[in-house]
């Protein structure tokens, strides 16, 4: 997915708001944004290269067909047909090359993602080590298809930072499909977009604070860019909130 100017502006605006509300996330947000833009540039390069490489034989065929149409000489017509055939071979080669390059490029993007999010992940873990957060299971173990793992890590760790406590159980898969994440919080965070009060604080008599609806939107931007969608279910019981996020491949 190549991000259009409009989407780019929307992401920029959203991230700007995110940083304003949560200055402690500035480093992570900037790095994540740079990563998205890097991926976008890589995809643009592929699109631009093939705008030329695939159009070239097609434009030749177009010109040869017009010449064929105007020609009254059989020898010329045979020559045009021969050159059309050559152009079709070139087109075929172009498609095969496109398929190969796409795989190479996606691998490169994936590796770059791995390196950048490793760094971000380490930074976040350092912050978390000061609190009560417990990571019960945390290893996707798949280097080839790294994006789900790292986007997922970034997303769930953001939840942990917001709450400062809780636990995460991860059911990892090689791709988005079937991957599931269960986050259990003693406090309630609303991920569906509406500001809610913190149940625990209200019960203890302190002033209720609004929670972060933007988090869900932010995560959706990431997931969309990575080619995935998510479905979130929230359950509350006896002061404990459980959020189950089921991932699936975007169509």
């Amino acid at each position, binding site marked *: 997915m190549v991000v259009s100017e409009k989407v780019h502006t929307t992401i920029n605006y959203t991230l700007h708001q995110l940083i304003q509300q949560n200055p402690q996330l500035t480093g992570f947000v900037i790095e994540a944004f740079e990563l998205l833009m890097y991926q976008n540039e890589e995809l643009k390069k592929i699109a631009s290269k093939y*705008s*030329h490489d695939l*159009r070239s034989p097609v*434009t*030749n065929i177009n*010109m040869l067909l017009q*010449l064929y149409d105007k020609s009254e000489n059989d020898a010329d017509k045979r020559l045009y047909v021969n050159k059309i055939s050559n*152009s079709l071979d070139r087109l075929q080669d172009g498609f095969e090359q496109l398929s190969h390059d796409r795989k190479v490029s996606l691998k490169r993007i994936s590796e770059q993602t791995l390196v950048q999010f490793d760094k971000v992940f380490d930074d976040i873990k350092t912050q978390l080590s000061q609190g009560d957060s417990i990571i019960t299971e945390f290893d996707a173990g798949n280097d080839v298809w790294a994006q789900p793992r790292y986007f997922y890590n970034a997303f769930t760790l953001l939840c942990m930072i917001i709450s400062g406590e809780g636990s995460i159980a991860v059911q990892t898969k090689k791709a988005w499909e079937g991957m599931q994440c269960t986050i259990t919080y003693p406090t309630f965070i609303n991920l569906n977009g509406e500001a809610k009060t913190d149940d625990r604080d209200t019960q203890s008599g302190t002033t209720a604070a609004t929670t972060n609806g933007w988090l869900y939107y932010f995560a959706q931007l990431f997931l969309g860019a990575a080619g995935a969608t998510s479905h979130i279910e929230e359950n509350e019981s006896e002061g404990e909130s459980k959020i189950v996020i089921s991932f699936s491949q975007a169509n």
Partner: protein
Amino acid sequence: MIKNIWIIDDDEIFQFTAQKYLELKKAADKATSFTNGHEAMNHLQQIVHDPDDLPDVILLDINMPVFDGWQFIKEFSRVQEALKKKVLVFLTTSSIDQADFEKAREISIIAGYIVKPLNEEKINDILSQYNGLQTV
């Protein structure tokens, strides 16, 4: 009719079809093809003071190995002052990349930007610019 036109393009089929089109339209007396900018620039430097051999129009491909269209334009702008006649340079490309179009618009020595395929209408545009230059 254009006296002398150069087609600088690494695509042999484009060279062939462009020459056929020009022939069919009786648009040029003489058409010469070069497979890259370097080859064309070497030849240009040899005939720089000879207006009879100099091209009147150049159809220049952007994407070429060795020496692409942009590099040719850069070199051409250096020798342009020494040329004994005005040469119209048209960029021809299969690319529909807007960035190429914007870049071309900023370079004054480029007379036009032609997205392939070449057709009668585009050849007429080249001819009318060339004829306009002759009447000045």
